[in-house]
């Protein structure tokens, strides 16, 4: 897991305009972290994976921006990106860069699943969170395939 300040547990689950702030802020933080992680991973990944990396990074930037807008529209200040993140292991070659990408996607999947679990059954919000979870699960499987690790999939992406 990539660590940042907003990982701290806070009590309650307030919602503003039916937006579950306490679940959305960690999802935004996970998107910030993923964008940062892809910046680092890109320095070590093979050229053949450049297209996949660019696609994944662009998805996370778009989702980060959309999540910020959701929070701003709800009248809440979005959590900012951290200057840097602590990685689970040193990232200094292609293999560790792939593991970082998988970690970033796994964190994002967990954050978006939590939004679903902790939000009212409001179609637009649930759909946005499901898209985030699904994209993260698909990217994680693609990175596992690139890394040659098995199994390529997990039965319950995002589940604790």
């Amino acid at each position, binding site marked *: 897991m990539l660590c940042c300040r907003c990982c701290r547990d806070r009590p309650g689950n307030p919602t503003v305009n039916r937006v579950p702030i306490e679940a959305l802020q960690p999802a935004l933080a996970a998107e910030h972290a993923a964008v940062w992680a892809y910046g680092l991973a890109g320095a070590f990944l093979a050229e053949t994976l450049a297209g996949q990396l660019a696609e994944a990074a662009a998805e996370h930037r778009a989702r980060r921006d959309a999540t910020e807008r959701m929070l701003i529209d709800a009248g809440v200040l979005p959590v900012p990106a951290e200057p840097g993140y602590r990685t689970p292991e040193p990232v200094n070659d292609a293999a560790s860069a792939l593991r970082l990408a998988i970690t970033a996607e796994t964190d994002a*999947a967990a954050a978006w*699943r*939590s939004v*679903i*679990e*902790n*939000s009212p*059954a*409001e*179609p637009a919000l*649930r*759909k946005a*969170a*499901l898209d985030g*979870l*699904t994209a*993260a*699960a*698909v990217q*994680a*499987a*693609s990175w596992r*395939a690139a890394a040659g690790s098995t*199994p*390529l*999939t*997990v*039965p*319950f*992406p*995002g*589940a604790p």
Partner: protein
Amino acid sequence: MLASGVVAGTLFVAGPAVLSGCSPAPPALPEEADPLASPAERAESDVVLARLVAAEHPALAIAAGALAADRQAHASALRTELHRARPGTIPSSSNPSSFNPPMARDTTTIIIDQDGARDALVRAVRSAQDEAAALVTILPGYRAALLASVAACCASHAVLPVLS
């Protein structure tokens, strides 16, 4: 006498209303199907389909075997939740092959050729993804999250190189 009689009567009438939680249950109405029943049956059907493909087509064996394992996990989790919600009404199954196995969809396609088998698997996971995703928007939190993971897992199978 009359006044006290009225008071007593009022209390008597009010009593059952206050204690309505203890009154006998009304006659049972036919229950609607649990919305998780269909995804559970679909997962079990997909396990059968994926196992058939894995046995018939060596080139698809790893992908189909992995799909069978994940769909088995989905079936078990969905059956557990169904059973929790309505104890005693739904038999729990940890292994679809151990009881009457549901007929796999598209079995005729599998027998024909490998491409047909691959198509059948892709159709199965996409249908499962669509069904689960539709329920994510309407069910309560825990169930929505469970189905969201099912949908995301099925999506990840669909894009793997062997199937895509």
